């Protein structure tokens, strides 16, 4: 397997060399929002490898905040000053860029290198990057939302076992509270609420019903008693949070678990990086609970790169080389270990991964536990409406379960 990977790299670079011949070095401007320490190390893998393996130059444009960075990319494309590569999140954010013919078509490269054969799960290519059979982006990593992060000392001191699902957690929560800890840590950003709510939802209703809601937009199901249970569970969960949650960032919230002040947070696997930076060890200081559910599913969100069309053929050649490099086994391994995310291909060396990452890798290998993320089914607009609803539901006790559920069904009905 490993050898096959290396062979592919060699083949790919050979193909690249043939393709460009003695092409001149080009400068490739890359816009991304990886500005923190750990992210910086990850993006440097791309940049250093790119500069070492090709004669081109990586021109770095870091803009903090995905919203800022994406808006700047869109506006620069419109202004005719498109960067050569841009980070996006997989989803439907760039549909119009594809329709407008503003992106470089990667189909030929993808077919030559056989992306379809090694990208796993296949859906991260077909769902996120393909449109009408053409390939328009490169997925570089996989992040999943469905994780509970628990502080082992807090559970020990409260005298309750670490739960494996939400029901157990809710049973333990009063004891944790009595012991003087915050049972459920959550922050104020609206996306935290949508994310965690959906985690609870999948945990309760399961994969098929999740698809019924968001893929099939079954509003009748959204009005069902089963979904009402989800809202009730969520209300119970948020009643175990602390007073200061309203203004908190997600990472300050994670820090509550790291510093043993809160018992558990539901957050995507990017939270692992926070524990790692704080020097915490999984299994000793903290536990990562997939699901949190006995039958966990993982969504496959992640970062992708787009390559806006350029006038200069030399830059275009360099863009293709960069795309090929980003997905090559060596770079995938180095990048994802640095980033703390999972690689988009199975044939890479992840011997450096920690136990939480291994749990994730194992789940990814089984297609049945892989879940398509919400943002592949609905637009950013609809996600936004859901964010507003869930955040309001969390903080406004005056909004009843029935009203919230009815509004939820309304959003599902009109979703696009």
């Amino acid at each position, binding site marked *: 397997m490993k050898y096959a990977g290396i062979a592919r790299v060699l083949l790919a670079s050979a193909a690249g060399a043939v393709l460009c011949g003695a092409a001149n070095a080009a400068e490739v401007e890359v816009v991304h929002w990886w500005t923190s320490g750990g992210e910086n190390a990850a993006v440097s893998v791309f940049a250093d490898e790119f500069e070492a393996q090709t004669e081109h130059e990586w021109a770095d444009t870091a803009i903090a905040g995905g919203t800022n960075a994406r808006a700047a990319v869109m506006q620069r494309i419109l202004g005719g000053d498109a960067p050569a590569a841009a980070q996006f999140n997989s989803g439907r954010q760039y549909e119009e860029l594809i329709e407008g013919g503003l992106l470089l078509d990667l189909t030929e490269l993808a077919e030559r290198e056989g992306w379809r054969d090694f990208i796993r799960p296949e859906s991260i290519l077909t769902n996120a990057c393909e449109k009408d059979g053409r390939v328009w982006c490169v997925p570089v990593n996989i992040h999943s939302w469905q994780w509970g992060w628990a502080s082992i000392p807090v559970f020990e001191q409260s005298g309750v076992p670490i739960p494996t699902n939400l029901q157990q957690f809710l049973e333990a929560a009063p004891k944790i509270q009595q012991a003087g800890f915050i049972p459920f840590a959550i922050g104020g950003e609206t996306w935290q609420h949508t994310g965690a709510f959906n985690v609870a939802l999948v945990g309760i209703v399961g994969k098929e019903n999740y698809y019924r809601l968001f893929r099939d937009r079954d509003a009748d199901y959204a009005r069902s008693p089963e979904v009402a249970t989800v809202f009730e569970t969520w209300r119970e969960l948020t009643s175990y949070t602390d007073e*200061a949650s*309203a*203004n908190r960032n997600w990472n300050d919230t994670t820090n509550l678990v790291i510093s043993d002040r809160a018992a558990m947070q539901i957050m995507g696997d990017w939270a692992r990086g926070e524990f790692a930076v704080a020097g915490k060890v999984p299994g000793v200081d903290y536990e990562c609970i997939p699901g949190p559910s006995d039958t966990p599913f993982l969504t496959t969100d992640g970062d992708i790169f787009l390559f806006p069309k350029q006038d200069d053929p030399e830059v275009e050649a360099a863009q293709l080389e960069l795309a090929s490099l980003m997905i090559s086994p060596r770079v995938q391994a180095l990048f994802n270990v640095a980033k703390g995310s999972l690689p988009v291909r199975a044939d890479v060396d992840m011997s450096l991964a920690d136990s939480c990452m291994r749990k994730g890798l194992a789940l990814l290998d089984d297609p049945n536990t892989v879940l398509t993320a919400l943002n592949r089914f609905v637009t*950013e*607009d609809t996600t*936004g409406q859901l964010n507003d609803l869930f955040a309001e539901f969390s*903080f*406004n006790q005056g909004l009843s379960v029935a009203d919230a559920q009815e509004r939820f069904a309304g959003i599902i009905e009109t979703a696009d």
Partner: protein
Amino acid sequence: MIMVSVGVFVFGIIYSVLLSFTNAKLFPKFNFIGLDQYERLWGETRWLVSVENIWIFGVLIIVFQMTLGYLLAVFIDQRIKQEDAFRTIFLYPFSMSLVVTGLVWQWMLDPNLGFSSAMQKLGFESFVFAPLVHQSTAIYGLVMGGVWNGVGVTMAILLAGLRGIDAEIWRATRVDGIPAWRAYLYIALPMIRGALATALILQCTSIVRVYDLVIAMTQGGPGIATQMPAIFVIEHITNRQNVALGMAAASMMLLPIVVLLAIKSAADWHAKSRREQRAA
């Protein structure tokens, strides 16, 4: 340049009103669908909350900034030796990145960190001052931050106005033995109405456009309790990729301003005709 500027605004306004009748998503496209966006807009809880908030926030900000701003300007006008220092102190919040000052305010109003814990450590066990974490009070926390951020500019404009008043007038008030506070209230205030109008309009523009302050202090929360129209517009134009809905919201925001401007030009016209009467 000035024509370009006016042109940009005219074009921009027409353009956004037109877009609000379309179904444009990410990039502007003119595919007209009528009033659908407005219908959705006024059905969104978040928009309704935003509209209510902007009025509460706006009225409070104007009242506090005008009163405090004028008081500060008058007090600084008392031949204060350290005038430069005081003026800079009142103005400095204006120069600071709101991302970080918002965070600092958030800390100071945090129930476990800032004022509350400082007072509790001083022995006031039950002292709690944490407006930002409650739905019903968060907006007042924002007002605190907003006044802090913007009052210096109001002060500077009013001070410039006061400094523009003819010295003869002051001499006359002293000769007549009018107390200083009366002179400031009844003589100076009407004389600096230009500066007052400038300050008012400046405040209104920053109120209507309020964005960074809210994002930095509450991110629109708890829940959606401190959402504002400008955040709605900007989020829909950028992140949520529903340009048309964002433009519909923007057009609604401009509506009260049209009314205000009409009132203002009526007042101007009235004042002008009075001035002409006096001149005659």
